[in-house]
């Protein structure tokens, strides 16, 4: 039981960054950004490589997150400047990222167990060495640290979305024509949102590599659906009314989702089935009309904005 809770909290907070990023693009911007399946392992790969070549783990994690931001920019530029379909742009970036990861790491995975990781490095800031703590203490400290980090991200994002620029981002997802008529270049708001979102997703991947002790090119498979599941769980439990509920709900949804996975493992359910089960649960949540999320925009679908501008006879 204790394992389920600690694992749920630790993994949930780590993947909470990703849930926030996915919420930002899929839900708020109405942009189904598939880049995240690439920027998650990219964050891990860049961080791992940086640590192996001797970089400070703090810097390594930052570099990993920044690499995600670059990936988001790539998708954003493809979509807004080169007019590539949004889903295809994400797929192209993800595909290219695979090469970038293999080239960077030089092999499909890098083990990190012998290197000082991000959490130990932070402890060292407070003059604590890992060996002086019991396992429980160590876990408590890392969970607290992750909690503070994800809470900071949540608060920053909540603040950003209530600034003038943040309002323009939200309106780009809500009524693009309207915000354009108020003088906003919506190509730029989309680009900015994709950068922020993928920065957070890659940060999530970077922290995941630190917590599990390795980076692997395949670690991004299924993370998008898992994030969508987290966001849906959050919405079902905490409501979808209001921005604060959505943001907080995504993190708590992530914790609950990860706790459920840990519970499944504890009950010896076959781990290889988890991804299909998650996919089916997400499908049901989107499909079943009585589920709360259904009353608003479908989560995983791009928003259809009617484009009547080119039609004649509208006079």
């Amino acid at each position, binding site marked *: 039981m204790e394992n389920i809770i600690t694992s749920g909290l630790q993994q949930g907070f780590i993947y909470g960054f990703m849930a926030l990023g996915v919420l930002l693009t899929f839900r708020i911007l109405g942009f189904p950004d598939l880049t995240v399946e690439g920027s998650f392992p990219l964050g891990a790969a860049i961080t791992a490589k940086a640590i192996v070549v001797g970089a400070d783990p703090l810097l390594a994690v930052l570099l990993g997150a920044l690499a995600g931001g670059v990936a988001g920019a790539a998708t954003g530029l493809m979509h807004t400047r080169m007019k590539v379909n949004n889903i295809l742009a994400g797929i192209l970036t993800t595909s290219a990222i695979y090469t970038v990861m293999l080239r960077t790491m030089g092999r499909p995975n890098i083990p990190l167990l012998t290197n000082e990781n991000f959490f130990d490095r932070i402890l060292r800031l407070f003059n604590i060495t890992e060996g002086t703590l019991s396992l429980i203490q160590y876990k408590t400290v890392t969970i607290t640290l992750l909690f503070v980090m994800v809470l900071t991200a949540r608060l920053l994002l909540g603040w950003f979305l209530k600034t003038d*620029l943040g309002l323009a981002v939200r309106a780009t997802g809500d009524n693009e024509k309207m915000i354009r*008529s108020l003088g906003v270049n919506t190509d730029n708001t989309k680009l900015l949102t994709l950068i922020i979102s993928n920065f957070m997703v890659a940060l999530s991947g970077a922290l995941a590599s630190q917590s599990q002790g390795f980076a692997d090119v395949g670690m991004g498979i299924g993370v998008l659906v898992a994030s969508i599941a987290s966001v849906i769980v959050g919405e079902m439990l905490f409501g979808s009314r209001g921005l604060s509920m959505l943001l907080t709900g995504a993190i708590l949804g992530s914790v609950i989702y990860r706790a459920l996975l840990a519970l499944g493992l504890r009950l010896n359910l076959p781990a290889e089935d988890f991804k299909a089960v998650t996919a089916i649960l997400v499908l049901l949540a989107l499909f079943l009309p009585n589920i709360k999320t259904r009353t608003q925009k479908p989560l995983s679908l791009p928003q259809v904005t009617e484009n009547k501008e080119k039609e004649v006879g509208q*006079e």
Partner: protein
Amino acid sequence: MIKLTNVYKVFFPNTSNEVLALNNINLDLNPGDFITIIGSNGAGKSTFLKVLAGIELPDAGKVELAGKDVTAYPEYLRAKDIGRIDQDPLASTASEMTIEENLAMAYKRGQVRGLRWAITSNKEKLFKEVLAEVGLGLENRLRVPVRTLSGGQRQALALVIATLAEPKLLLLDEHTAALDPKTAKQIMDLTGKIVSSKKLTTLMIPHNMEQAIKFGNRLMMMHRGQLILDLGHEEKSMLTVPQLVERFSTASGTAFDDDRVLLAT
């Protein structure tokens, strides 16, 4: 102030569906003009407004706004000077955002948007004042999402959004068409009030002939992409609806064929 010179717009060029939506439009607007534009279906009225707003760019000709050549400016670059309302109440407001958030976005029309709080107590006070003038009680519902408003309330809000930052030009494209007659009248009266109090230069495609006569100081007719009649205030204020239809037939050589505009009240 606003000047169009030899403006053309063609849809589906070089196909059998080719439409000359704007055929050599020339127009010079004086500051404070309130112009109503009538014409049959497909006469090019909406295209005309869209070319002014930058939603459509002209294929030939020149569009000038306050002495600046804006012909090639996309919509978002002209937005600082142009407020626009569509006939669809869903088009001019952001549904999932609150009334005050919609107004905060309008407050920043055409300006650089940075990382300051969008809503401050000063702005809130201003929004309340502006909404109180509308008289629909919206000033007490600042934090309500716009999706909960009725069509009329949304168009009233759209009017406030379009005029909050006092644009140089206001474009109204049958903005009361989707409303019931009583609400339409309310919104039209509100429009007249705001336009005259802020002395806004306005182009309106009216929803019916009565609106065309009652509002504005200048009336224009469009037919097949051309401006075929331009009546000044004197001439216009003496007109009745049947006379206006008659003038149209004489000028265009065809009968006025838009029943909706003729019959709508």
